[in-house]
């Protein structure tokens, strides 16, 4: 990767990508003329697992269109007001005050009140088990309605990610069917309503005519395709879909079809190789051996394969351009370029003959791990590559009877959601080898509790250095997920995460024009 591109801002980076064959991202967010009303947008990115927004786990792309939160994540990753028109945080980071937007109504016509918000916070706190939101809510000492439009919140200790995470605390009418247990028909405030849902097949979401932002939505409905078998690229080209996530290898044909523009999520997915940190097997418990393996891996080649021109090589959990990104640390990446000679020297130093060892290598099915495996083989190690389905891989990783993996993880509303997995009791730590490092735990906790951004960044960097020093895992780089948008769609630009709707963008502003 040319060094110059590393210093580009995210936006600039993506723009340069456009010049390399991927359609331009810039300048399409507004309307050239008055948007046309009506039309059904066919949208296919991620699935929908539950009709209860509070119980939703994992990446979410659908439910934002019918339920909204107090905050949302803007395209640049910053927190922006949403149902809360204004919010303030006390200097100690323990008291929050949200002023609700006036004129917001639920789909059943009820106005949104502070009491409703408090009820939602209480519901998540008491009813929802698991999930980072629920964990965060455990810190909430008290949530109270201060008049009809103000909600106050006090925490037992400072919790920096709270505003970001509040973008996923969806506010529903307590009158929603199933409120006491599992919500069957969510009543939200979004621009579209929860219509009919057939799991794994589709969700039809008709427009909500009394949406609080007047003039929106333009569409009459959205049809979410929730199936995950179809080749979406083919469907896009045939005009069966308007918006869909696409694999990089289909971009060329899609662009050539002239029917779609290729855009990218603003946050990135990150790619890594990790070692078994919980029960490491010699010689892979030796940082020198780990470093040698890392040195065999050509990060640039891999990131070019998985990310095309937009793939970035780095050694951090965030991509260049992110507020937490540190250029100096990036420049000091010892694994930025493969160096087989150095790798072999390290192995010799550790008295390890690679041909005597077979690396038990676990991955999901797909081409990217195969590339890593081939690179590791070049070092002389034998590799037994076990490619499994989603759960199979995760279960196997949980047995800690392997040596190495190659995994990736998608966009998140807050950086903390990446770091939490590296903690000893973090949720699902297997992808990163189940690190058990009290020192690292303390650092991450400190970062979370630090209200000041600059200081927080510094602490996170300490944690980054700690990981690098122990070679728990090696970040290969970042690449954005791609979303193809039909040329007939106006006013739609993918956001920071998979969310289909947020305060400053999304499907509420999209419209269909005649092809």
């Amino acid at each position, binding site marked *: 990767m040319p060094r110059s591109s590393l210093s580009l801002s995210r936006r600039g980076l993506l723009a340069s990508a456009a010049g390399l064959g991927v359609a331009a991202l810039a300048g399409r967010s507004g309307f050239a003329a008055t948007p046309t009303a009506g039309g059904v947008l066919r949208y296919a990115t991620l699935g929908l697992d539950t009709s209860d927004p509070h119980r939703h*786990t994992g990446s979410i792309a659908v439910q934002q269109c019918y339920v909204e939160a107090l905050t949302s994540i803007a395209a640049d990753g910053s927190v922006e007001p949403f149902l809360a028109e204004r919010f303030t945080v006390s200097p100690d980071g323990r008291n929050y005050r949200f002023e609700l937007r006036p004129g917001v109504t639920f789909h059943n016509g009820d106005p949104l009140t502070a009491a409703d918000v408090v009820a939602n916070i209480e519901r998540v706190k008491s009813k929802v088990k698991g999930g980072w939101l629920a964990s965060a809510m455990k810190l909430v000492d008290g949530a109270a309605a201060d008049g009809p439009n103000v909600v106050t919140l006090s925490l037992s200790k400072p919790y920096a990610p709270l505003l970001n995470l509040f973008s996923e605390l969806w506010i529903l009418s307590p009158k929603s069917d199933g409120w006491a247990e599992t919500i069957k028909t969510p009543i939200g405030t979004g621009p579209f309503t929860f219509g009919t849902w*057939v799991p*794994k*097949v589709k969700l039809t979401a008709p427009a909500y005519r009394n949406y609080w932002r007047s003039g929106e939505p333009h569409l009459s409905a959205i049809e979410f395709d929730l199936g995950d*078998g*179809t080749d979406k690229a083919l*469907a896009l080209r045939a005009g069966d879909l308007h918006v869909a996530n696409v694999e990089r290898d289909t971009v060329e044909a899609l662009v050539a079809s002239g029917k779609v523009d290729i855009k990218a999520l603003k946050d990135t997915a990150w790619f890594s190789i990790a070692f078994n940190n919980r029960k490491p097997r010699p010689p892979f418990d030796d940082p020198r051996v780990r470093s040698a393996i890392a040195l065999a891996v050509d990060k640039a080649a891999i990131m070019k394969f998985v990310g095309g021109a937009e793939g970035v090589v780095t050694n951090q959990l965030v991509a260049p351009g992110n507020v937490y990104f540190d250029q100096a640390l990036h420049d000091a990446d010892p694994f930025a370029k493969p160096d087989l000679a150095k790798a072999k020297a390290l192995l010799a130093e550790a008295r390890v003959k690679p041909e005597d060892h077979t690396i038990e290598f676990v991955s999901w099915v797909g081409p990217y791990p195969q590339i890593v495996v081939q690179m590791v083989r070049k070092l002389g190690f034998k590799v037994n590559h076990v490619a499994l389905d*989603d759960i199979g891989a995760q279960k196997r990783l949980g047995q800690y009877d392997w040596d190495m993996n190659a995994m990736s993880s998608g966009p998140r509303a807050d950086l903390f959601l990446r770091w939490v997995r590296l903690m000893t009791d973090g949720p699902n730590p297997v992808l990163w080898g189940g690190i058990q490092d009290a020192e690292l735990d303390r650092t991450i906790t400190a970062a979370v509790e630090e209200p000041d951004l600059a200081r927080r960044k510094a602490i996170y960097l300490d944690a980054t250095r700690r990981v690098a020093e122990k070679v728990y895992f090696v970040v290969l780089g970042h690449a954005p997920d791609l979303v193809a948008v039909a040329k007939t769609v106006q006013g739609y630009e993918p956001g920071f995460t998979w969310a289909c709707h947020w305060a400053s963008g999304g499907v509420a502003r999209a419209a269909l024009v005649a092809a």
Partner: protein
Amino acid sequence: MRRLLPVVTALAAGLARALAIVAVAFFLCRVMPGDVVDVLGLEGGLTDAQQAELRAALGLDRPVIAQFVDWGAQALGGDFGRSVRFDRPVAEMLVHAAPVTLELALGSFGVGIGLAFGLAIAATSLRSRVLDAVIDALNVWSIAVPTFCAGVVGIIVFSLWLGWLPVIGSLVLPILIIGLDNAGQIVKLVREDLAEAVMLPHVRTARAKGLSPWRIALVHVLPVAAPIALVLSGLVLSGLVAGTLTMEILFGLPGIGSLMLNAVHGRDLPVVLAAVTVVAVALVAINTLVDALHRLIDPRVTR
């Protein structure tokens, strides 16, 4: 009563078989690595303690046998339980999925049987080497070319280049592709069977009677081929129940097959079991029906 006895035993055997199939599926599901809690926890950030709690709530920590018995008792009462993943009644999901698969299966069944018999009859009555070559080619095709390849090519040609069909949801291509595949698998047998049938003594009698080839084919040859047609139909049908899977995946058809595959990947046990049960019962029903029809059609079977 004596006439009913075979029917009753056949039904009992069929039911026993369906039950056994479901049991096999159940235990296979249980030995699969990971369960639905892992799925929910994968991205959802559940700690181990939370996962254990959820497992206990779902009864996944109980002995396999007990789980199966519970499930079986409920299923007998028509209650297939709820999808753990989607927290919906499984029956509802099946109701959505079944018609898709049914349409796909019946359509390709018609195409397959029609094509196979059409070709075989034509080749037999015309004694055409060209048609025999076509039959051989179709047979090799069905053995060597996976349906998903044909599917991808079909999409490119008919959906992209010609723009005749949508990619998602259209049944035309999958029906044609499975139909072609089925036809290829049986056409040679039908051809051989007909070739044998025209050599049968009673066909010679018909010729000696001076009947037209047309009448001979229709009245004297085809009925002989009917039993094997029936057997083949039964096999094609039972093959179809499973055979539609790749097409459902490729064409994004929300049928039983994709429901099942998704549920396997999601370790959504109640859905897998319900889908397997439906398929198994369908297969047993088809086999029983074919058997009954066979007895009905061929007067000699009952002898």
